[in-house]
């Protein structure tokens, strides 16, 4: 009955992305080794990219693979290897009494509320947006996204460049060893 309403390929793509996303996410929170968690994170990010492609966000899917799975996860792996913390953590250790039970309760309430909200709302029955430019439903939307980012959201785009500079300087300051002070001590 579902297959009669929606096309089989769309359902298959959704099932694939859901499997990748949820399997990877559960792997991230359940495996003991941080390296394995990073590999599971790649699975989730790939699943999200599949969902992006299925919803006409081609450019974002490419960025998702290149920036997230390529750069951010490699950064995670670099820090894991650099610190040498790729031994197992005790997943079952629970220093705070009842922490896990409270976490389960909070997450169930939040997700249950979200799903109830989504199920009881009629998001798609309204008119399409009048504020932004309408979405092309053709092949690719790179041009459209570029136009939006460099016209409507130009100030936000410029602010992100400042944010990235601040982040780079902050990371360098945080991760740098205090060489100058030790040299002074040696000289004195």
């Amino acid at each position: 009955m579902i297959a009669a309403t929606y096309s089989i390929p769309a359902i298959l793509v959704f099932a694939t992305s859901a499997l990748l996303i949820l399997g990877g996410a559960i792997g991230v929170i359940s495996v003991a080794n941080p390296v394995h968690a990073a590999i599971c994170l790649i699975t989730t990010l790939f699943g999200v990219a599949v969902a992006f492609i299925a919803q006409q966000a081609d450019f974002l899917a490419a960025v998702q693979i290149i920036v997230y799975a390529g750069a951010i996860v490699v950064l995670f792996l670099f820090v894991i290897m650099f610190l040498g913390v790729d031994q197992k953590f005790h997943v079952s250790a629970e220093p705070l009494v009842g922490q896990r039970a409270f976490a389960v309760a909070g997450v169930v309430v939040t997700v249950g509320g979200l799903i109830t909200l989504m199920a009881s709302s009629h998001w798609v029955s309204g008119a399409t947006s009048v504020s932004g430019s309408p979405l092309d439903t053709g092949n690719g939307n790179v041009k459209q996204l570029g136009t939006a980012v460099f016209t409507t959201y130009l100030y936000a785009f410029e602010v992100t460049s400042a944010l990235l500079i601040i982040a780079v300087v902050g990371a360098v300051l945080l991760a740098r060893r205090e060489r100058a002070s030790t040299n002074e001590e040696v000289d004195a």
Partner: protein
Amino acid sequence: MNVPAAWYLVLAALLFGVGAFGVLTRRSALIMFMCIELMLNAVNLTFVTFSRTLGDIGGQASVFFVMVVAAAEVTVGLGIVVAVFRRRNSTSVDELSELKG
């Protein structure tokens, strides 16, 4: 015809819940950062889904900016993890209890 938007929204809600559970229960700061990435990706998936349903490119532009902020956040966060590891020789957040009264 594509599957309804509610399917993707429910999937994003579940992904957000899994990420939130990981942040609340895991002790390693690195795993907590990965779980924050999961939550950010859930929000991105919601943005793209609404962008498709409402036919507005603004949702995808928002995802673009979320990705930039996520990259900056990971850079600074991992810098903090490295700095803390130098001092404590551990990435467990339970070790960071100086401010406890």
